[in-house]
């Protein structure tokens, strides 16, 4: 194959850049990125935390769910610059440092609540946050369905995910 002349390619676009300083999974981070960079892309590509997935970029599927200042939120509907000063938690912070699974993750494994795994980080982040909220959990079938609404899964049909939430509550003494 004939070798072509290597094109001259700039390092990045000429978008105005902003410095975003925030805490991610307990670590202080400061990066300079395009002003329009989405938080989802910031986490995945600037920080290399690819566990947060992008399924729709319009806030419907929930695959991109992270915790923003302690609350579950869609990173695709947040600009990185909006997260200036914020405290972000991603799926990578949920298991122990040695890799031991969090009870929610353990419950998913026991209940076959994931197949392709693409929606799973968003599901886990959503459920972990709901369990973080004070007060009793509604662990009826409908209560759990309500908890899961807002996270799409195309593989499992949800039945095992509902069982996993119940099992997680058991493991965490919240049942």
């Amino acid at each position, binding site marked *: 194959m004939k070798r072509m002349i290597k094109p001259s390619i700039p390092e990045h676009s000429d978008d105005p850049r902003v410095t975003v300083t925030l805490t991610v999974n307990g670590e202080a981070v400061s990066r300079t990125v395009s002003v329009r960079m989405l938080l989802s892309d910031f986490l995945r590509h600037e920080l290399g935390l690819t566990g947060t997935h992008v399924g729709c970029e319009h806030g419907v599927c929930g695959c991109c769910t992270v915790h923003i200042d302690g609350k579950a939120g869609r990173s695709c*509907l947040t600009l990185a*610059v*909006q997260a200036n000063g914020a405290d972000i938690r991603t799926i990578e912070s949920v298991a122990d440092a040695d890799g031991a699974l969090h009870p929610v993750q353990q419950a998913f494994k026991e209940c076959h609540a994931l197949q392709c795994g693409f929606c799973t980080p968003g599901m886990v982040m959503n459920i972990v946050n709901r369990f973080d909220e004070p007060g009793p959990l509604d662990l009826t079938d409908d209560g759990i369905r309500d908890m899961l609404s*807002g996270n799409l899964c195309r593989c499992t049909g949800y039945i095992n995910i509902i069982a996993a939430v119940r099992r997680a509550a058991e493991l965490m003494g919240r049942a």
Partner: protein
Amino acid sequence: MKPSLFGYHAPKTLAEAVAILASDADAAVLAGGQSLLPAMNFRVAAPSTLVDIQHVAGLKGITIKDGAITVRAMTRHREFELDADARQANPLVAEVMQHVAHVPIRNRGTVVGSLCHADPSAEVPLLLVLLGGSVVAQGPQGTREIETEDFFQGFMTTARRADEIIVEARFPLLPAGAGWAFDEVTRRHGDFALVGVGCVVALDAQSKVQTIQLAACGIADRPARLKEAEALLAGSSLTPADLDAAANASLSAVSGSDDMHASASYRRRALKALIKRMVIKAAERAHAGALT
């Protein structure tokens, strides 16, 4: 689906924020971003400037004063939904807010943002219309209060001027002893309402309707008070015939045409059913003679 380029400001004061808006006719206010960001990602919205008001002083908080629940601009849906004082002051808050999208959206999206977005199928604008509330706008010329009937002007159009920021919304309290109800029909849980109906009713000592407020979303280009139905039901004992008449009188309020999720004729059917159901439910919750 990435947004097109914009200038970004994160002012610390309201005056700064208003000044930026005044300087750029294509600027947009960014609060929760749950309506704006999807539109920007699809590039159906391309504001030249974003004014991020999350750090503006004085825009947080919910207070009960002067007969209303006052919600400042950066109050998230979920904060409003779970606020103990607000829920007590008007149980419709909890009843309506649980229908707004899904919890992660409610964690970020703001009450005032939803009012400004003015989607005719949205629940928060309906709540304001039902209760006859108001909003407060801050512009370069100063502050003004806008009543709800003047605020919602048409399809996703409000009375907010391009250089104004809505700094708070005021939701009237539920009158003591009044009954309340809200429900909606959607395609999926958390979707926008195909039709939503809310009702507030107070009964006299004979259990007849003393006052009644009825409003619907999803049926026209903005949430609508169902004034004809209210007039028919005032003073009534809420018999099935009364309810039928009120429901039928409301059909002309359905002004939309068929769309992919619902035909106008289905909306009329659902509206009738919801009106009857919500009036009955609200009446059950009302205490007879409470407003004497």
